[in-house]
């Protein structure tokens, strides 16, 4: 059945960052609108999807939420290969996690996909009394490295939808239709199922 105007786009997105920075919580807040104080540790990676509409286009994010422990690093290429977007997450109350985030940025830059949309998220913004990394520090690092930056809180949902929306908005401009990790299809061939979001944690 022909549809008018709207395009559907699928975009692979990977969440990277230190253990406990809040990758799974951000994904869960975005996909299901939920938050748990104790989010089960991710092993390997969890897979979730969520669809957003930006102007005339709907973007279906296929989110790979990866495990944060250092030794899982060697598995990461499998998840970021062919990704259209990456969110690198750190915990504003933990300076080690900020250092780790920088390493992820460097690694992704080395992969040399110039079209990759990269976001830096300083998570746990609700814990400002325990803050170790000032927002300005995150902001200036992001600017120097061509990422966009937001402080987020999966707990209060501050900036969570905004973060994904901003990525969705940057995608079509950043990436031609043929690029890997993203595909454009028209409505007639779209296979969007009846469930708008799935969670395979």
């Amino acid at each position, binding site marked *: 059945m022909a549809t008018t105007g709207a395009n559907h786009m699928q975009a692979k997105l990977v969440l990277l960052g230190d253990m406990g920075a809040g990758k799974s919580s951000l994904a869960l807040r975005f996909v299901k609108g939920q938050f748990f104080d104790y989010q089960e540790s991710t*092993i390997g990676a969890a*897979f979730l999807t969520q669809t957003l509409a930006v102007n005339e286009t709907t973007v279906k994010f296929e989110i790979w939420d990866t495990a944060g422990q250092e030794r899982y690093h060697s*598995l990461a290429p499998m998840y970021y290969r062919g990704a259209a977007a990456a969110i690198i997450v750190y915990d504003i109350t933990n300076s080690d996690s900020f250092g780790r985030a920088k390493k992820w940025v460097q690694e992704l830059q080395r992969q040399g996909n110039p079209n990759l949309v990269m976001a830096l998220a300083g998570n746990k913004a609700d814990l400002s009394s325990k803050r170790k990394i000032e927002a300005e520090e995150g902001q200036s690092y992001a600017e120097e490295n061509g990422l966009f930056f937001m402080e987020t809180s999966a707990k209060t*949902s501050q900036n969570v939808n905004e973060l994904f929306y901003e990525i969705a908005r940057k995608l079509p401009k950043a990436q031609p239709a043929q690029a890997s990790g993203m595909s454009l299809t028209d409505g007639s061939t779209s296979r969007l199922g009846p469930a708008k979001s799935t969670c395979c944690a």
Partner: protein
Amino acid sequence: MYSALNTEPPVEPPPTTAWGVERGEMQDRIDTKRNVRSSRPRKPTKVKMQDVYSFNLEVSREEASIIHQVKERVKEQGRVWWAMEAKNGAGWYLQPEIFAQAEGYFVSSLSLVTMTSTLQLKKLIRSGIPPLLRPRVWSAVSGANKRRSSAPESYYSDLLAAVEGRETPATRQIDHDLGRTFPTHPWIDSADGRAALRRILVAYSFRDSRVGYCQGMNFVAAMLLLVMKKEEDAFWMLAVLVENVLFDDCYSENLYGCHVEQRVFKDLLRKKLPRLAVRLEEIEFDVSLVTTEWFLCLFAKSLPSETTMRVWDVLFNEGASILFIVALAIFKMREEELFAAKHVGEVMKILHDATHGAYDPDELLKVAFEKVGVMSLQSIVKQRKKEQPAVIAELERRGQLNPSDSVQSSSR
């Protein structure tokens, strides 16, 4: 035993978004495009219940009925074991020479009587060990008893005393994961449960500092605690599991062993399910995306608890090849559906449903043993050796191999 939910689970209000389209509207649009006119099917009623190991479940009526059947079968299987006990003598399965691990290696030296017992035990274990007997049988067949007997009796308490109050990167990571290990299980989530889990993981991280703590071990150790009941017994099961039963290096730095397993698994998939393997490659689905978690948690995070324990029954008696056989069986059970999938997301959904909904252990194990077929531990050890150079090369290329890692010396 269980009650139907009268109320729907709370529905989150759609987020108000700056860009105007709320999720509900989005769904309606998609439905319209797909020309769905009829009213949406109502969500099937969910039933709340606890499984054999007290995990809280919310399942469909069909699944609830399967879980009840499984509970009945577990009781029936208990009667079979007691009958064997009456016939063969109490603790007949505790003699080291009849464990399946002994098969292959010493066949020529086994007496006919012993051989018969070995086969009987293997068959019985494949049909399931009753939960009450698991601690005894596992300790015996896995080699945990033997390992423990070579250490001083006070080993575990001495180890705990020695590490008391010490802080390492491993202990910090363990502390971080305690509350994130089966957070909805009533006992694991209790103060006692978390304390016991902490002790065995911390003790193990000092026992083997090369492994230290690897995420995934938290789920494995928690299941061991639920089965073994006694903390010290669970500790020894963890030790024998990591040191003897599993292949080398599966939890060590860089997850070197895990990389090898993934390659071996892909090779087996190509041999056992060639058509599907090709198809999945065509749609760029790397099976490691899903199997990594299966191998690192030994299915504890993906299969229902009794199904996981049935896999572990075989794991402790016959060795780690069962992990490959079960992983293949999961693909086999959904072969047609997977073959028809056109996208990575669909494949993930099918495999997620196939594992999380595998409430009937016999259904899965029947496919594993009858359709996938048995493969010997030796053949997998051989295949692992073949794959090792490629993994070492790959990790070296990425600069992720620590020169001090003595991976080449791995024997299994």
